[in-house]
């Protein structure tokens, strides 16, 4: 069964706007990772945040992690049409051997 839950399930915005996606999980983790998946393609790794980190940046991406609330958010600033994709959070739970537990994803549509 999947551990993560993502919110919203779908998000539609205009180019240039910011997009925020949220992820909640249930058990203690080593780290949390965000992936992007274009339709019919494989998963592309975006960012990894460890359990002792609270915020991380990579280009237009900002990820936060609140282990007390067991939640994370992904912010994409100044969105572009090319950002249209599904976004998944994946947790690496403690003592689970490194396997990732994925949420159901947020489908982001950025309109030009």
């Amino acid at each position: 069964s999947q551990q993560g839950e993502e919110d919203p399930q779908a998000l539609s915005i205009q180019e240039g706007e910011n997009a925020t996606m949220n992820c909640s999980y249930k058990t203690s983790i080593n780290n949390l990772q965000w992936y992007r998946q274009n339709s019919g393609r494989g998963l592309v790794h975006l960012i990894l945040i460890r359990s002792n980190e609270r915020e991380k940046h990579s280009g237009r991406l900002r990820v936060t992690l609140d282990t007390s609330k067991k939640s994370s958010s992904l912010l994409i600033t100044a969105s572009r049409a090319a950002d249209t994709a599904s976004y998944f959070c994946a947790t690496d739970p403690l003592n689970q051997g490194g396997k990732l537990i994925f949420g159901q994803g947020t489908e982001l549509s950025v309109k030009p």
Partner: protein
Amino acid sequence: GAGVSQSPRYKVAKRGQDVALRCDPISGHVSLFWYQQALGQGPEFLTYFQNEAQLDKSGLPSDRFFAERPEGSVSTLKIQRTQQEDSAVYLCASSLGGALHQETQYFGPGTRLLVL
């Protein structure tokens, strides 16, 4: 350098057929994972190898699913007597170190399996 590759990219099988899906991880990567992704869902863990050792197969849905990595590099996921519910995208991922290293998993493009 080359990423994770998978073959075939698409496979159509008749119910009851056996299929074999191949994964070529990034050269030198110790860890290899298989995931199953149903339409509209996130990937779900199937099994994990560290080198040639299969350390976790808790996600394999039935004894019809079998995976191997005999020389610690290429891996094959075999599904015997395929059923319609096996239709999904099968994703392979590799990472450089063992599980305790908490490293990024790099995914292949997947094999889309359709069982008729």
